[in-house]
């Protein structure tokens, strides 16, 4: 599964929107809502934030639709907008969080609370995912959840293939360590 083959009639819908058929955009929103929502939800770890970012991405995409050079690849183009919006929202959330951290160095070295014995696998995965650095989380999700090729990931993120491979590798190692630890609790 890639991002280039989602919906064979994307181009037709895009062209209809560009010629004034606003309603056609609803088809595109419905087509991509859940899949992009999944990425945003996993990336931000919060449904409310994810839906806000998703809505923002759809509206921004509509505004910029004239700049969608290849309507056949509308899905990939939209994905790129969402990835950027998630980065911005993530950075904003991180800044918010820092307001409450008086000693970042101490907090970084302090043991973090893990999922307790009652937590199920879903809690454990979300907990571990949230602890990954955002770049690693982004790369892991794009590679292993959205199942994109590294070349597509490079186009979306602006990072080089080698850097992305390294981020994915680190993410896998960290997740393995955290989840194995969680399973022992």
């Amino acid at each position, binding site marked *: 599964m890639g991002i280039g083959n989602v919906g064979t009639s994307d181009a037709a819908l895009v062209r209809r929107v560009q010629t004034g058929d606003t309603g056609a955009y609803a088809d595109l929103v419905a087509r991509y809502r859940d899949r992009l929502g999944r990425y945003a939800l996993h990336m931000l770890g919060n449904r409310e934030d994810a839906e806000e970012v998703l809505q923002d991405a759809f509206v921004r995409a509509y505004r910029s639709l004239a700049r969608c050079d290849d309507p056949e690849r509308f899905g990939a183009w939209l994905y790129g907008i969402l990835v950027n919006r998630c980065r911005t929202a993530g950075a904003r959330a991180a800044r918010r969080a820092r307001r409450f951290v008086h000693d970042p160095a101490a907090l970084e070295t302090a043991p973090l609370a893990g999922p307790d014995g009652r937590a199920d696998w879903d809690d454990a995965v979300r907990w*571990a995912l949230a602890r990954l650095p955002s770049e690693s989380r982004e790369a892991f999700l794009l590679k292993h959840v959205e199942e994109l090729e590294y070349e597509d990931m490079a186009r979306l993120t602006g990072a080089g293939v080698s850097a992305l491979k390294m981020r994915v590798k680190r993410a896998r190692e960290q*997740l393995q360590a955290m989840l194995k630890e969680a399973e022992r609790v």
Partner: protein
Amino acid sequence: MDDVIERIARHLRRPVQIDPALDGRVMREITALPTPGGAAALGKAWGWLTRPHQLTLTPLGGLAVAAALAFVVLLSRMDSTSPARSQAESHAFQFVLVAPRATHVELVGDFNDWDATRTPMRRTGREALWTVVVPLMPGRYHYAFFVDGSRWLADPSAPAARDEDYGEPSSVLTVGGGS
């Protein structure tokens, strides 16, 4: 791939359901925006598309389909193609109804003699956004949505009117001559 990673990935690949109401929120936002591509890109049938302008946005009444929304959007002013019509230009209005449970919807009003066969609305998207674009000359129109051949839905926040012929609630849309 390592078993743990494969298990994580499989878990995260499960479908996620995003609130379908997001579709309506997006559509409401974009109806206030200019059409992508601008007038230069349209230059043909919609050659001089003007900035869309939302006229009404209302929840439907309690008797209506749950969670339904209706709104009307001025899309553009349409070209007058004959000298006889030069004094009264028509405007394109997009009527939108969100009715997730409807199977078919028609727009009825003074502009189509309340004939439910003349202006069927088109369903777009899985969440049943029903839309139709109607050119209207300046004037005052009563209109309603006719759902599944049995229910009339009016717009409670738009000026209401009771149609003398049919006795069903309807809404009023006034189309100005300028813009």
